[in-house]
C-alpha cells in the first residue's frame, strides 16, 4: 500500500512545490548497525552484553542490570509480535507524512521478551480491522536509497505465541 517518497515525487504535478519528504533516520555510532540491518530487511534489537536483556531503545545504561557498559549489540529477532494497541493517524505533525495519511500505527510487543514493545506502521491499510493480541510480523518500507524503515503486517497466528517465549 505504501510508496516511498522517491516514488511519490515521480508523480507530482508540474509547478507544484515539492512535497516534503518523510524524515529519514540519522544513524549514529551506536545505531548504525540497526539501520544497516534494516536496509537488508532484517529487524534487530539491542541486547545487553552483560545480562542478555533486549532493550528498546538502547541508552548508556542497561535498564535491567544497570550496567554502565552494556555493550549493546543489535541482534536479529523473529520480527513476530502481537498488537497491544493501535491508532489511525489522520493528521500528522510531520509535513513529510501528510501525503501518507491516513495510516495505521501499531504498538507491538515483540515475541522475544515480555513488554519488549516497538511502534511501527501496519502496512495492511488504514481500514484494517484489528484487535488486541492480533499477530503481526515485521515488514519493511523502502523510503529512500539504502534506507528501509521497519513496519508490520498482519500475520497468521504462530505455533509459539509471544506468551510462551521467554529468553
Amino acid at each position, binding site marked *: 500500500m505504501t510508496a516511498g517518497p522517491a516514488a511519490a515525487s515521480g508523480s507530482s504535478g508540474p509547478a507544484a512545490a515539492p512535497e516534503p519528504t518523510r524524515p529519514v533516520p540519522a544513524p549514529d555510532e551506536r545505531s548504525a548497525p540497526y539501520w544497516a540491518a534494516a536496509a537488508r530487511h532484517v529487524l534487530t534489537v539491542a541486547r545487553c552484553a552483560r545480562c542478555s536483556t533486549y532493550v528498546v531503545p538502547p541508552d548508556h545504561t542497561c535498564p535491567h542490570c544497570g550496567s554502565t557498559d552494556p555493550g549493546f549489540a543489535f541482534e536479529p529477532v523473529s520480527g513476530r509480535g502481537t498488537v*497491544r494497541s493501535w491508532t489511525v493517524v489522520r493528521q500528522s505533525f510531520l509535513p513529510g507524512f501528510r501525503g501518507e495519511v491516513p495510516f495505521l*500505527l501499531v504498538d507491538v510487543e515483540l515475541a522475544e521478551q515480555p513488554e519488549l514493545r516497538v511502534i511501527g506502521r501496519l502496512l495492511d491499510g488504514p481500514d484494517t480491522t484489528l484487535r488486541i493480541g492480533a499477530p503481526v510480523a515485521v515488514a519493511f518500507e523502502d523510503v529512500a536509497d539504502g534506507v528501509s524503515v521497519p513496519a508490520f503486517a498482519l500475520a497468521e497466528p504462530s505455533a509459539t505465541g509471544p506468551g510462551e517465549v521467554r529468553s
Partner: protein
Amino acid sequence: MSARPGSKGQVAIVGYAHSDVTRHAGRPLGALAVDTARAAIADAGLTAGQVDGFVTSALFPTAGAHAAEDGVSLVSADWLAQRLGGSPRYVAGFQGIGQIPGSVALAVNAVASGAADYVVMHRALHNPKGSYHANPMRTAGGAQQWTVPQGFFGPLSMIALPYNEYLQRYGASRETTAAVVAEARKNGARIPWSYWHDRPLTTEEYLAAPLLSDPICRYDCDIPVDGVAAFVFTSAERARDLPHRPVYVAGQASSAPPRRRLPLHWPLDDIMAGGTALAKRLWEQSGVSPADVDLPQVYDGFSPFVYFWLEVLGLCPVGEAHRFVLDGGIDSDRPGALPALSGGGALGNGRMHGIPQMLECYLQLAGRAGERQRERATVGVACASSPHFGGAVVYSTAPR
C-alpha cells in the same frame, strides 16, 4: 502535628491572580506574567518588596520547531524576579516530573526551610503562531530515530495508543468520553477568564468532530493558549495576618520516572502502575484518604486522563471510570457526585497545564469561587499531567 519531617500543613496559599486565557494575548507573555504576578501579590495583601521567593516550571511543551525565548514563549522564575523588584533571595525553576506539583513543592520547601518568606509561584503558557506541534524535520536523530521515521510523533498519537488500549480492554466508547468533554466545557463555560467562557460543547458536537488520531478528536485535546496564573505561598503563621482564608498544602506526590520506553510511548499499564504508586504515596504523605476528598480535580489535558486519574486515585474501580462518568459520577451539578472537573480543567479553560485544577482547589477551599462556590469543599486534590508522568497536590481548609 505529624512526626514526619516536612512541611505538611505548614505552608498555605494566600493569594492568586489569573490572566484572561486567549488564543493570542496580543502582548508579550512576559508582560502578562509581570501584571499577573503583581496582581497576585496585591491580592495576598503584600507588596512586591515583601516577596522574596520566585518559582515556576517554565516548560514550553511543544513538539514543534518553535524557539523557546524567555519572556516571549516562556517565562522563567529569574526573568520574572528581575522585573518585579524587591529583594529576591530564592529563585528556582522546576525541571523534573510533574510541572505544577513540582513547582508547588519548590514553593512549599522554600517557605518551610526558611529560604524565603513569601513565594510567588507562576505558570505562563504560550501559543506560538502557526501549528503548535508541527515539525518540518527531514532527519531524525537521537531517540527520535526510533519513532519519527515510522510516523509516530507528537502528543495525539501518544495519547491515542493508551486511550485505545483502555477502550478495547474495558469495552468503553467515545460516546462516554463525549460526556467527559461536555462536563469540562460546561464548567469552563461558567468561568469568566476561560477561553471557552459561555461556550459549552454538546455530545453531538463532540461526536461529529473528525478523528485526528483514532480515537482522539480535537475536542479531546486542550486548546493552546496564552495565559498566566500566579499564586502566593507563605507559612501558616504569617498567613494568619493576611486578608484571605489560607488554603493549606496538606501533601504532594510526584510520579517516579516510568519504565524506559520509546519517546512518547505511554502504554496504559505504565500509566496505571505509575499512577497507583503515586496515589499510595499521596494518601500516606497527606494523611488523607480518597473518601475525604470532596473536591478532586483530575487532569484532563487529554480527555482519557480523566479516566486514568479517577481510577488511580481510587475514586472509582479500575476499568469503570467510563461507566462512572456516564452515570453522572462527575457531574458538578448533581448532588452527591464528585465534581472532578468543576474548575473546567484544561479542556474547559485552555492549555494551562495543571493550573485550572490548582486554581479550583484554591478558590473553592478559600471560599472565593463566587457564584460557583460549592457548599462543601474542605479537601481538594489538584492533579497534573499523566498519572505516571505528573503529580498531585492535596489542599485543605485546615492545617492537617
